[in-house]
């Protein structure tokens, strides 16, 4: 589904790479937490999957496509298979809930009939059935994030990327969002979620990939936010591993 081969990303003007020789594979239907401190490369990872950035070196395959060989003209069509959710929701403030979700279908040329059917369905699934006429500012943070999730999945993407979707929400609301994401994952969608929220990661018991300074230091099935198992063994432990060790 998503495969990184020796992927490095160096932003111009930086000496330290945002991602350093990352190799990993995420399979269909997996639910993966991407954890690590700010600046550890989580967002860069998600941007690379979306082809918002190109890697400095290495190969990325997403949905069977080699992103390095994907032409700019095809990128929009590639993105129709990937849903994205952000910490700051990114809703259109002047459009109501229905129109916000419908907008993402309109701009990819879906028919009116399809939109009239798909949008109420997805709103019902995220638990906003009665609120389709509300404007974003009339909703709570959790509800706004549900709208954003509805928008991301209304086109039935194979992959859902979530960049700290609970970052702005209180724990109870976050739990609700996680239940929703879990349900989406259960229906076969691959979910990759970058997060800082230790509580969520610990309760969900899913695959955890930990990044430190752009390197994968842990890839654990049913892991917690902090590991109790032995981290990935490397031939040459990166310098940052010392910092990790002291933190543990």
């Amino acid at each position, binding site marked *: 589904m998503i495969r990184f081969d020796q992927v490095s990303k160096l932003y111009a003007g930086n000496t330290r790479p945002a991602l350093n020789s990352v190799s990993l594979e995420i399979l269909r239907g997996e639910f993966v937490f991407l954890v690590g401190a700010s600046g550890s490369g989580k967002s860069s990872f998600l941007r690379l999957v*979306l*082809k*918002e950035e190109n890697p400095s070196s290495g190969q990325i395959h997403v949905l069977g496509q080699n992103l390095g060989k994907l032409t*700019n*003209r095809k*990128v*929009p*069509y*590639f*993105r*129709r298979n990937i849903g*994205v959710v952000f910490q700051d929701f*990114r809703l*259109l*403030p002047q459009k109501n809930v229905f129109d916000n979700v419908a*907008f*993402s279908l*309109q*701009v*990819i*040329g879906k*028919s*009116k009939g399809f939109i009239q059917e798909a949008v109420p369905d997805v709103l019902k699934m995220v638990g906003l059935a009665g609120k389709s006429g509300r404007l974003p500012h009339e909703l709570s943070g959790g509800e706004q994030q549900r709208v954003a999730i509805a*928008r991301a999945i209304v*086109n039935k993407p194979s992959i859902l990327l979530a960049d700290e979707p609970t970052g702005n929400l209180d724990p109870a609301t976050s739990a609700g969002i996680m239940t929703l994401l879990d349900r989406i994952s259960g229906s076969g969608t691959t979910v990759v979620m970058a997060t800082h929220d230790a509580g969520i990661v610990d309760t969900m018991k899913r695959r955890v990939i930990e990044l430190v300074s752009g390197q994968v230091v842990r890839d654990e099935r049913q892991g917690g936010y902090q590991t109790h198992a032995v981290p990935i063994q490397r031939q040459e432990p990166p310098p940052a591993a010392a910092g990790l060790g002291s933190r543990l």
Partner: protein
Amino acid sequence: MRLGLILSEVGHGLRRNFSMVVSIVLVTFISLTFVGAAILLQQQINQMKGYWYDRAQVAVYLCTQYDEGGNCNAEEATAQQKANIEQVLKSAVLAPLIQHYDFEDHEAAFARYQKQFAGSEGTSFVTPDFLPETFWVNLKDPSQSDAVVERMSGVPGVEDVVDQRKYLQPIFNALNAASITAVGIAGLMLIAAVLLIATTIRLSAFSRRRELGIMRLVGASNRFIQTPFVLEGVVAALIGSALASGAIVAVVQFFVQGYLNATPSSTPFVDLGDAFIVVPILIVGGAGLAAISAAVAIRRYLKV
């Protein structure tokens, strides 16, 4: 569905940037009016050239008893000299260039002079023998007059050889200068128009950057994102070109045809037929320019 969506986006954009759109309309209006004026001036020049060059002749003035310049010796050209001159005009060198020629004697020249300068004071002093006898030569190709002038100047009994085209040249120079000035102003204004369109489209895109971000995220194609902005520029420019076309047609109808053509002169002027050739050039040119500058301006927002 998609067309309706795109058009509603265009309408939104135009309303949101109303003042900028008005300025685009005005600037394209003025610049394209100058473009149209320059084209009309060129058409006018061509028309006058065609008209006058057909009528322009090379005059071979013969000596009178008062002339001392040229090949004259203050002696009237003799009958033998005239015969010789005619011989040269019929010679193998010049004959192919010449369509036909007429001889004008003293009396005919005097009659023409009196008619041309009727009422002016000098006419009463002039007698027929002051005015030179003349061979009026019509050329097949007026631009080859140099050969005739050169050949005839040296012939005995010829006082002077004058190509009438040279009297027209200053008029064409003035019209050309006016035309170049119009092109220059049009060029500057068009640059302003292009920059204005680009700025307006950027502003428009900036005010819709949330929508653009989401469009890119959910996989709207570049063409879909781009089209409303390009159309926005094109609509504004089309209004400007329509106004410019109206101005050009009005100028031709009311000033050229209504005023200039009413004055007594034999000069032909551009007519509405010429103006209607200019209109499509302005419309297509204005719309094309707007489309290109808007498309370039929006490119930054399409980077995937």
